[in-house]
């Protein structure tokens, strides 16, 4: 039974890896990579929720009666767009931080302000 749900296990593992990378490293870019992995795990979660076993793409045809749910896939397209926008903004911020402080290491940044 646990084997059947392996996709969810993967989601959880990815999510934890992502969160860990957000918290642990002091490099601002690495944190963003972690954030991206974290978000991606949720995308995968949505995509696998929509998949119906034995189902095909939701296009009417006489040979198929079971279709996958297209809605989560559509939703996650939106979420991916949002994620990219967030990432672009975050990277822009890091660029500004680099030019203002000369570093993108969190611990060095903290030191400079105190």
């Amino acid at each position, binding site marked *: 039974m646990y084997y059947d749900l392996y996709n969810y296990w993967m989601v959880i593992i990815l999510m934890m890896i992502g969160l860990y990378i*957000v918290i642990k490293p002091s490099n601002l870019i690495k944190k963003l990579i972690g954030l991206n992995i974290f978000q991606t795990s949720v995308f995968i979660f*949505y995509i696998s929720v929509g998949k119906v076993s034995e189902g095909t793409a939701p296009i009417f045809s006489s040979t198929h009666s079971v279709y996958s749910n297209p809605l989560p896939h559509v939703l996650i397209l939106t979420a991916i767009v*949002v994620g990219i926008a967030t990432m672009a*903004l975050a990277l822009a911020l890091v660029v*500004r*931080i680099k030019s203002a402080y000369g570093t993108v290491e969190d611990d060095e940044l903290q030191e400079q302000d105190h």
Partner: protein
Amino acid sequence: MLDHLPILQVIVPLLAAPACLLLNNARLAWLFACLAGLISLVISVALLVQVQQSGVISYMLGSWEAPWGIEYRIDLLSAYVLLIISSLGTIVLLAANTGIRQEIAADKQSLFYVLYLLCMAGLLGIVATGDIFNVFVFLEISSLATYALVAFGRDRRALLAAYQYLIVGTIGATFLLIGIGLLYSMTGTLNIEDMANRLPVDTNSGTVYTAFIFMIVGIGLKLALFPLHLWLPNTYTYAPSIVTAFLAATATKVAIYLLIRVQFSIFGADFGGELIQPIFIVLGLLGVFVASTVAIKQSNIKRLFAYSSVAQIGYMIIGIGIGTSLSLQGTLLHLFNHALMKGALFLALAAVVYRIGSTDRTCFNGLAKHMPWTMAAIVIAGLSLIGVPLTVGFISKWYLVLASIDSGMWPVALLIVLGSLLAVYYVWALVESAYFGKADASATSSAPIKEAPLGLLIPLWLLVIANVYFGIDTRLPLEASASAASFLMGGGQ
């Protein structure tokens, strides 16, 4: 036209935003943004009247029937919150032209209005929509705009604050997204109304509980629920003052709205009650005491009031935690009232920054002589924050205390009033230094400090007068919050 008000509420600022970009002139952009703000204010008033007269408004986007299409659903609660956002957003916007002059470079000022309107559109969208996924999208629209707005701050630490807020905010939003996904997998719908109808069948399912917890934590991050508030003080301190006023008056209010919506409309008032309600009450009280105590020690006044915001959010959470119709009304009242007082306080700080360029405590010494109107505004808004009678703060405290006594929670009632004692400390320390403090010699030798310009004073005093007016003539917020609260409690069962 009248039928389309729900969507116009969101569309007007959303479309006005890129239009500001095209104008490419700060003053024109400001006038245009104000116009858009005023229009959305008028719309929200019309919506509130309409809802009060004829009940819930349901608007089908593109005429696709709910629950398949996206529904915009304006009930009493959303109409009430829409009014708060559009009115406060517009008043702060009125002050923006003068307020950002010293804090944002001239060539970036028209971009400021673009982001401001986008943020406002996002916040209005969260409240107006009846589709839970749409909530996520609007939440991200407003959040992205907010991160950029915060980064406008003059101090380079604003960049770090924006970055920190971005990380926390994105995690929060993604948590919400997980919750939405889990709920969708259980109910097969994204329409809030539809979801609420289908949920009770599955309340015992672990998945629903997981969804609930993910959503509460996600929203908790966005609303700076103690102890998830760590991003807020930096953000409020280093953002341009106008942005702080806007965020304090609207953004946290929307997050509270979302929490109420999720807890009461989707899951129902009783869902997870015995588990989550004590947690809310304890976290709320902790928020009040810890944040107020920290606030007392702050030397930067903007940061002081940021911590005070965390404390005030605590009061609203207590009201949700008690979970009666009366306490919910207290929370809704405080939503409105806190927007008024914090809007006024941060605008006053914007005026101080405009003239002095800093909000350090030492700058306030003897400032009442130079800026009597600004300081008088701080005194009145501060009294309202404490909860002195004849100000709005008193009304919401009254309801929260009454609700806790009514539910037999005497200790909570006592702790709530004790909490406002801490507010007396930090407000009065400020008032004392403004009226009795001696300015240090270096400050007096330079050019004399003048009163803030009218462009800031007029919006500021609008809010101050509202603080007093709604403390005396309480009918509007009282009726709206009472019917919204009973609607929520009735709808949840």
